[in-house]
């Protein structure tokens, strides 16, 4: 299949391209940007007039809910949501049921995903068996089976000795470890940021120091073990400051934030809106502002959807009992554009945070449109407006605090290795 993407505005942050150019694709790869290679004869021409052509998005956290939670979502539904959102690579955390702590499970997941010929799936293997924080998993075997790094998802390793051993072991093989910086004692029973809103609503709080204390502990272990660490879902200004200092010190660390924390704060809980029940909790507007600036400045390496489809039954409960999480794969692009618009950032800079930067965190050859790169491409209408509703979402999870929001940025085509995985006209 040879595709000629015509008249589009190419934005390729990794290569500093921000101009109207044609893109030529053959045999699953980019074969030309601007000029067609000699003897190129397209089977298909995509007219991208008025549209942006950028690398397919890379989402550092999307729960696909398989295995074990098929009543919340299936691989089919969530992979359809991914490509509808322009996402061509995604990382799935290991908190499935059973947990991704055995090579067979990872192989099965990779196999099922490959058969769908959709977005590339990069599983995170469990750092400890059952995420219980007690015994190490067979990390090398899991890596061979296709795990990109190791994580505890939202769970913690409370025993610091076990944690240090796990990090030493991962460092032995050069594996990166992705952890959520949250002190489990301080976060215990908490469901909202410990501050004005939680106080007013009588919700058990999680203080900011749950994040900063966890970060100090993890950073001390990074220094001790030399492991490369990625911090998932930083939520506070103070937490971000700790990451910035660690980076300045030269430690091998990176971090991400979610689209929810980029745009929302504790006030968005309103009258106990269960869609605003998230991990980590939404914090103050000052924290949100720090995250927005941190993402622009690069202290935050990447923006992710933290896609977590939840069934209605698990959300139609009192706030504290409602399952945490929000659907997000289809909102990653529009919410990136919203942030860029509000901060008046050029798209070439903003899109880096969902393309080339997460690729760097993952260490994969993706997220750019250079000749010879895999033809994972997102083509979107930056001015296409729509209202988020249950019916516009392809994900099985309709749970998002952005229901009812007017957003712009509609994906028109998503290409994965040179085939059209999503076409909004179909």
């Amino acid at each position, binding site marked *: 299949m040879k595709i000629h993407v015509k008249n589009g505005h190419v934005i390729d942050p990794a290569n500093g391209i921000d101009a109207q150019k044609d893109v030529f694709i053959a045999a699953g790869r980019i074969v030309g940007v601007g000029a067609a290679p000699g003897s190129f004869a397209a089977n298909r021409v995509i007219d991208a007039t008025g549209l942006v052509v950028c690398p397919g998005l890379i989402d550092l956290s999307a729960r696909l809910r398989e295995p074990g939670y098929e009543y919340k979502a299936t691989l089919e539904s969530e992979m359809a949501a991914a490509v509808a959102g322009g996402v061509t690579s995604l990382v799935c955390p290991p908190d499935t049921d059973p947990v991704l702590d055995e090579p067979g499970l990872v192989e099965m997941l990779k196999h099922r995903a490959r058969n769908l010929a959709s977005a590339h799936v990069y599983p995170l293997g469990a750092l400890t068996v059952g995420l219980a924080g007690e015994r190490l998993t067979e990390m090398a075997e899991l890596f061979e089976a296709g795990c990109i790094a190791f994580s505890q998802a939202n769970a913690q390793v409370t025993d610091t000795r076990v944690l240090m051993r796990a990090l030493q072991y991962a460092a032995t093989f050069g594996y990166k470890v992705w952890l959520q910086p949250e002190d489990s004692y301080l976060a215990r029973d908490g469901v909202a940021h*410990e*501050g*004005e809103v*939680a*106080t*007013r*609503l*009588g*919700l*058990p*709080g999680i*203080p900011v120091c749950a994040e900063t204390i966890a970060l100090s502990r993890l950073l001390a272990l990074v220094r001790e073990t030399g492991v490369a660490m990625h911090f998932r879902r930083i939520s506070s200004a103070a937490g971000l400051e700790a990451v910035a200092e660690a980076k300045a010190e030269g430690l091998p660390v990176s971090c991400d934030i979610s689209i929810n924390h980029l745009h929302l704060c504790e006030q968005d809980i*309103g*009258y*106990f809106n269960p869609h605003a029940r998230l991990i980590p909790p939404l914090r103050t507007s000052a924290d949100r502002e720090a995250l927005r600036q941190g993402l622009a400045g690069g202290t935050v390496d990447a923006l992710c959807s933290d896609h977590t489809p939840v069934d209605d*039954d698990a959300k*139609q*409960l*009192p*706030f*504290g*009992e409602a399952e945490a999480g929000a659907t997000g794969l289809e909102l990653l692009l529009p919410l990136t554009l919203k942030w860029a618009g509000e901060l008046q950032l050029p798209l070439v800079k903003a899109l880096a945070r969902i393309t080339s930067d997460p690729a760097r965190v993952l260490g994969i050859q993706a997220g750019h449109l250079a000749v010879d790169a895999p033809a994972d491409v997102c083509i979107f209408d930056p001015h296409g407006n729509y209202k988020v509703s249950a019916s516009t979402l392809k994900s099985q999870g309709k749970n998002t605090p952005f229901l009812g929001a007017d957003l712009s940025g509609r994906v028109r085509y998503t290409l994965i290795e040179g085939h059209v995985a999503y076409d909004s006209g179909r």
Partner: protein
Amino acid sequence: MHNPQLNKDGALQHLLTIDGLPREILNAILDTAAPFTEVAEREVKKLPLLRGKSIFNLFFENSTRTRTTFEIAAKRLSADVINLNIGTSSASKGESLLDTVDNLCAMQADMFVVRHAMSGAPFLMAKHLADTRQEHIHVINAGDGRHAHPTQGLLDMYTIRHYKKDFTRLVVAIVGDVLHSRVARSQIGALTTLGVPEVRVIGPKTLIPADADRLGVRVFHDMRAGLKDVDVVMMLRLQNERMQGALLPSPQEFFKYYGLTVDKLACARPDAIVMHPGPMNRGVEIDSAVADGQHAVILPQVTFGIAVRMAVMCMLAGS
């Protein structure tokens, strides 16, 4: 953001929390309650205002006092009252809150009086009733988690108004476990809405919630300083399970520093009144000499509570 307890005309649809209710509505409830206090003194303690209405007391958490006062209030208004103690009912079989609500709606409920251990549960019910277009069914929050206990807050306001007349010249102190207290949150909301110029909270740092000052209160950790020149002292109940552990070392030490004694009460104004939502822990948060003393208005609170609950029920469901 739309306040879910008001209908589109701004009238009271449910009573879920004091927060966000305008002063006029609070005053209207207190004014409506006033004549109901006399009903209790009649030989026939009944009014026909809610005749034919079915009121479900839906208690997911144990309570004797609050449930009883709601029951008396409803019966004095001639309503039919059905008590459900869910601890012994469907929830223990796994039925969800909203399934329980749907089933009771199918039995033609007119009003739910709900107590639940989770903050926000009555909001979930109210939203569900709106989503299923059953706006004719009303919800009264009889206490949700740490969040709110609005009828308690209102009966406390009724009591203060009865003894002190004017809210706008008062200094009021709330003492004890503010962190876990839905009563305190409703009191603070009501006092600030009704124009009390100075509301204080007093307790050790472990029992004062984060950013409490953002609720419009002054925080004191020294009880004597906090009680200085106050007109009203509102004591809170300290739950047994919180008396020893990571929040407090012992009930004895709590009593020594935060228990209301005659000696500490002397810091307040000579005509100060002392309130307590009950049930009291004598010798933990309050000394018997105070609880039974001349400043205490704790039993009148209970009496007024019935009138206030009658008023709320009438305003919601009365024709």
